[in-house]
């Protein structure tokens, strides 16, 4: 496993906390994608991170800026993935997830999406869009896996 290269897509708050717990479980070459505005996340990760623009700034943003930021994140994700060429991209479900995951799929890189424990019955918007488009889509609760085709339940990380 040591020769594997894994990119973790983080976010803020709980998404980041779970991503870091997961990254500590495995001995591989680890890299992180973090939102540039989250100083806390950068401090927690310390090194090997790529700071990227988030598609949305919570509720304050207008739609045009969100589209622009999303496009930028697609390009930035393409650059990062071409440069890094990881074996696997893992996300704990933050708002950054869709662009790097779709780019990874395009490049034939494996992806693992891990939905937040806060989603018991319904997936998040990002999660829903990615059902069927990842190598693995894991829910934190059996309820969610029962309701959606392509969703697997293996247990929870918190």
């Amino acid at each position, binding site marked *: *496993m040591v020769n*594997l290269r*894994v990119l973790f897509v983080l976010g*803020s*708050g*709980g998404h980041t*906390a*779970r991503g870091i717990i*997961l990254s500590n*479980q*495995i001995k*591989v070459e680890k890299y992180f994608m973090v939102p540039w505005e989250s100083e*806390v996340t950068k401090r*927690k990760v310390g090194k090997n991170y790529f700071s990227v623009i988030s598609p*949305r700034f*919570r*509720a304050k943003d207008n739609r045009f800026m969100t589209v622009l930021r999303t496009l930028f994140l697609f390009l930035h994700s393409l650059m990062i993935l071409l440069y890094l060429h990881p*074996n*696997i991209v*893992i996300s704990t479900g933050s708002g950054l997830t869709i662009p790097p995951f779709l780019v990874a799929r395009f490049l034939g890189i*494996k992806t*693992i999406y891990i939905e*937040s*424990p*806060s*989603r*018991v*019955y*319904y997936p*998040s918007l990002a999660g829903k869009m990615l059902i069927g488009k990842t*190598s*693995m889509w*894991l829910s*934190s*609760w059996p309820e969610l896996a029962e309701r959606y085709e392509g969703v697997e339940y*293996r*247990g*929870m*990380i*918190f």
Partner: protein
Amino acid sequence: MIFVTVGTSLPHDRLIMKIDNLVGEESIKEDVVAQIGAGKYIPKNIDYIRFAPSLEEYYHRADIIISNCGAGTIMENVTKGRKLIVIQNPDVTGGHEWEIVTKMEKGGHLVWCKNIEDIAEAIQTAKTKKFSSFKPKQFSLGEIIKELIASK
């Protein structure tokens, strides 16, 4: 001690102000420590911190924990059977928090305070309520990766 935490994503000044006022008017007589994040409201009657690398020592010391509806905070505490009161932060995106909160409330793992005005009452409830600890199944990322690499 009562520990109040707003988490790292966004501050929740209204909650901090409410608790601070309740302590000021002595409706809450316990010591209170609050983690206020980037909040603009500075409490006058209670101790506070902004952020900490880990809140575990505060959780451990607290008799009652008041938190936002963040899944991480909830899981960290319900798995240890601690006295937890959760209250929604209206500024946090989503509105899906009811899913995990409903599930945990049904199981008797937490007290859900639906209105900030009822927080003193929720504290009273939490004092006498028995909280059962929640034991979720956990997975190993290493095994999942091995499986994925083998699957080609």
